[in-house]
C-alpha cells in the first residue's frame, strides 16, 4: 500500500473563465514514491537539510529563537565536513543580510535564516537585497515582535516587512517547509526574477514540531536546483558597480523594473512547481482550496493554521454547513487571479490575520483580500479574525465559531463586527 501523505480530501474548484493554474492537485489520490526516505524532522531541521542539499555556497547567519536550530544544524554539517559551504557566524542579523548581499553579488548561491527582531533589524537591508536583485533565500521562523517580548509564533515580523520587494512564501507543515525551500532557490535565481525569497514557517508550531518528512536524495536536489548562473556579478574581468546613487531621473524606472521582476515570480513559481511535481510527485499550487466548491462561507489563512481550518470545515460539514477553507502559499506576489478563482461564489469570507496593522481598518492579509474582491466587483462579505497573536492557540472551535459567524453574515448580508480579536479577554 502506498503511504498517503495527505489524509484529507481535496476539492478542485470549477474551472474559472480565465483558467489560472491553481490548485493543480487532488490530495486524495496522492501517493508517495516509495524510494523516498521518510524521516522525523522539525521544520527547522527540514529547512537546514533543504539548504544543505541545495548546495549553498555561503550561509551568513545569526541565532534567534525559534530559528536557531537551522543555524545549529548547519554548523554541524560544517563541523562534520558534510557541506562545502562558507559559514559566516555574523555578529547581528543586519550583518547577516549584508554579508548575504556581498556574497550574492559575487554570483553564488546564498542562504540565511532569521525571525522576529532579527528580521526587524534587517529591515533596511531587506530593501537593499531586493533593490540590488540578489536571489537570496531566507527562512523566516515567524515570531511575535517586542514589546512585550514574546518568542512564540505570529506573522507580525514578516507583515511589518511585507513591502520589502521579496517573494514571500508561507508553508503549512514540515514537508512543505522542506519542499518550498528547495523550490525557493529556483524561483529566486530564475533569470526573469533574480529576487530574494522568504520561506515563512510558523514559530514553534512548525520550527520545533517533529513530523514525517519525505527526503529527496542529495543528487536529486542538486540536479533540480542546478548551479546558479548569474549574468551580472562582481568579476574583475568585467567590472560593474552595484549600489549606485539613482536620483529622480532614474529611480522610478529601476523600481518599476523591480515591480515587474516580482510579478515574474508568479509564472516562475508555477514553472518550478511543475518541475518539482514531476520529480517528487508532490504538486503544490499558489493557492489551496478545501471544500470551497459549493461553499457559502470560507476561511482564508496563511501557514500552519490551514490544517486547523480544514478540521473546522470538516466538523461544520458534518453538520451540513456549507463551508470551506483557502490557504495562500504565495503571499508576494499576491496571486490575484487564483485568489478570485478560489473565492468564487462565496457569500462571505473570514480572513485570518496573525498580525496587527495598528490603526488600519483591516489587518494585512484581510486588506489585500478585500481590495482584490472589491476591484473584481464581488459583493462577498469580508470579516477579519485576528488570531494566533504571540503564539495564542488557534483552536478548531474558534475557527468553527468564526465560520459560523461568516455563515450568519452570508445569510443576513450583514457583518456584525468587521474585525474580531478572537478569544481576547476584555
Amino acid at each position: 500500500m502506498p503511504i498517503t501523505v495527505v489524509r484529507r480530501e481535496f476539492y478542485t474548484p470549477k474551472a474559472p473563465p480565465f483558467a489560472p493554474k491553481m490548485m493543480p492537485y487532488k490530495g486524495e489520490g496522492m501517493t508517495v514514491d516509495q524510494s523516498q526516505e521518510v524521516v522525523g524532522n522539525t521544520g527547522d531541521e527540514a529547512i537546514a537539510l533543504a539548504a544543505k542539499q541545495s548546495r549553498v555556497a555561503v550561509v551568513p547567519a545569526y541565532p534567534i529563537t525559534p530559528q536557531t536550530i537551522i543555524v545549529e544544524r548547519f554548523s554541524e554539517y560544517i563541523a562534520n565536513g558534510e557541506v562545502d559551504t562558507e559559514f559566516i557566524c555574523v555578529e547581528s542579523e543586519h550583518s547577516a543580510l549584508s554579508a548575504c548581499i556581498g556574497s550574492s553579488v559575487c554570483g553564488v548561491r546564498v542562504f540565511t535564516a532569521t525571525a522576529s527582531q532579527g528580521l526587524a533589524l534587517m529591515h533596511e537591508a531587506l530593501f537593499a537585497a531586493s533593490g540590488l536583485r540578489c536571489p537570496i533565500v531566507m527562512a523566516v521562523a515567524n515570531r511575535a515582535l517586542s514589546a512585550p517580548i514574546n518568542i512564540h509564533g505570529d506573522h507580525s515580523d514578516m507583515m511589518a516587512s511585507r513591502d520589502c520587494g521579496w517573494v514571500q512564501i508561507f508553508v503549512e507543515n514540515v514537508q512543505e517547509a522542506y519542499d518550498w525551500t528547495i523550490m525557493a532557490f529556483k524561483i529566486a535565481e530564475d533569470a526573469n526574477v533574480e529576487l530574494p525569497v522568504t520561506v515563512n514557517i510558523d514559530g514553534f508550531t512548525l520550527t520545533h514540531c517533529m513530523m514525517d518528512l519525505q527526503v529527496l536524495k542529495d543528487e536529486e536536489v542538486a540536479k533540480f536546483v542546478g548551479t546558479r548562473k548569474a549574468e551580472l556579478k562582481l568579476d574583475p574581468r568585467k567590472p560593474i558597480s552595484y549600489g549606485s546613487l539613482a536620483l529622480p531621473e532614474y529611480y522610478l524606472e529601476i523600481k518599476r523594473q523591480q515591480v515587474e521582476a516580482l510579478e515574474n515570480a508568479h509564472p516562475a513559481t508555477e514553472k518550478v512547481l511543475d518541475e518539482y511535481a514531476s520529480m517528487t510527485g508532490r504538486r503544490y499550487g499558489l493557492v489551496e482550496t478545501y471544500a470551497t466548491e459549493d461553499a457559502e462561507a470560507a476561511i482564508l489563512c496563511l501557514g500552519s493554521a490551514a490544517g486547523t481550518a480544514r478540521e473546522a470545515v470538516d466538523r461544520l460539514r458534518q453538520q451540513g454547513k456549507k463551508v470551506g477553507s483557502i490557504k495562500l502559499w504565495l503571499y508576494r506576489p499576491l496571486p490575484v487571479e487564483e485568489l478570485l478563482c478560489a473565492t468564487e461564489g462565496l457569500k462571505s469570507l473570514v480572513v485570518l490575520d496573525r498580525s496587527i496593522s495598528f490603526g488600519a481598518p483591516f489587518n494585512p492579509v484581510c486588506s489585500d483580500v478585500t481590495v482584490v474582491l472589491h476591484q473584481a466587483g464581488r459583493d462577498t462579505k469580508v470579516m477579519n479574525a485576528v488570531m494566533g497573536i504571540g503564539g495564542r492557540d488557534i483552536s478548531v472551535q474558534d475557527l468553527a465559531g468564526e465560520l459560523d459567524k461568516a455563515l450568519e453574515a452570508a445569510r443576513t448580508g450583514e457583518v456584525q463586527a468587521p474585525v474580531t480579536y478572537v478569544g481576547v479577554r476584555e
Partner: protein
Amino acid sequence: MVVSLKELTLEEGFAPGHRLCPGCGPAMATRMALKAERGRPIIVSNATGCVEVSSTLFPYTAWRIPYVHSLFENAAATASGVEAAYKWMLRNKETDQPVDVIALGGDGGTFDIGLQALSGALERRHDFLYICYDNEAYMNTGIQRSGATPRGASTTTSPAGTVIPGKRGPKKDLIAIAMGHHIDYAATATVGFPNDYITKVRKALEVDGPAVVHVLAPCPLGWRANPRDTVRLAKLAVQTTIWPLYEVEKGEYKLNMKIAQPAPIEEYMKLQGRFGHLMNPNRKDELEAIRQDVQANWQRILRLCGQGQA
C-alpha cells in the same frame, strides 16, 4: 618595504570625472589605495558616504574595478560576504582569479554606525582590508560631528557657541579598537604622505587576514579650509603630532615618522575655519587644553613604539 611611486600601476581604478569636491582628501585616499594593488584585482565594498554618492551617480560610475555599495553601516559585513564567496568560488573552481577585498568607509560609517560590523568582520578574521578615510565629521550630510571629530572642532551639531567651544571630548582611538581584535596589521596614514600611505595599504593587502588602515583625509568644505591646502593640512597634522604616523605589525608598534621639533598646533588650526573660534584669546584655555591632549597622545604613541620620551 617602501613602495616607490615609480612602480605603481598607471591604471586608474578610481577614474576621473567623479563628482567629489576640488581638494577632496577622501578622493585622494581612494585613488591612492587602488594604486597599491599587488597584481591581484581589488574589489571594493563601500559604505554610504561622500565617496559613494559622488562616484556612482547612475548611469555613470567612477569605478573601473568591481564595486558594491548597499548601506551605510555594513561595508565590513558586505566585504565579509564577498571574501567568503571568493573563497568558495576558488575552492570549487568557479574562478581561478584570487582577489583582494577592500572595505572603504568614512569616519561616520566606521567609528559610529559601522563599528559593530567592523568589529565582527575583524573578529571573524576575514582576509580583507578596512580603510577608514577620516575627514572627522559627517560631511556628506552637512558637517555633523562624529565619534572621529576632534576636540574643539566646530560642526553643525557641535557648533562653537558662547558657552560650548565646539566638540567635547577626544576622538575615538580606531587603531586601539582594531588592535583589540588582535589583528596582524593596523596603521595610520594621511593623504599628505602618499609613499607612506600606499606602502601601508600594500602591506595590509599582503597580510593574510584582516587589516585596518586609518587615513586622515582633509575635507576643505567641512574643515572650512582652502582646497589648495589639503596636502599641506595632511602634512601639518603629522608635523604638529596631532596625527602620529605609526603602524602595528603583529602587535609591534612602529613609528613611521619621527617629529623632533613639533610644529605649533596653531599652524594646523589657523588654516581651518572649524577651529577659528579657538584662535580668539578668550578661548586660550581650551586651546591650551587641546595642546596638552595632543602632547599626551604623542607621548603615549612614542611609548607604544618604544621611543620613550621625545
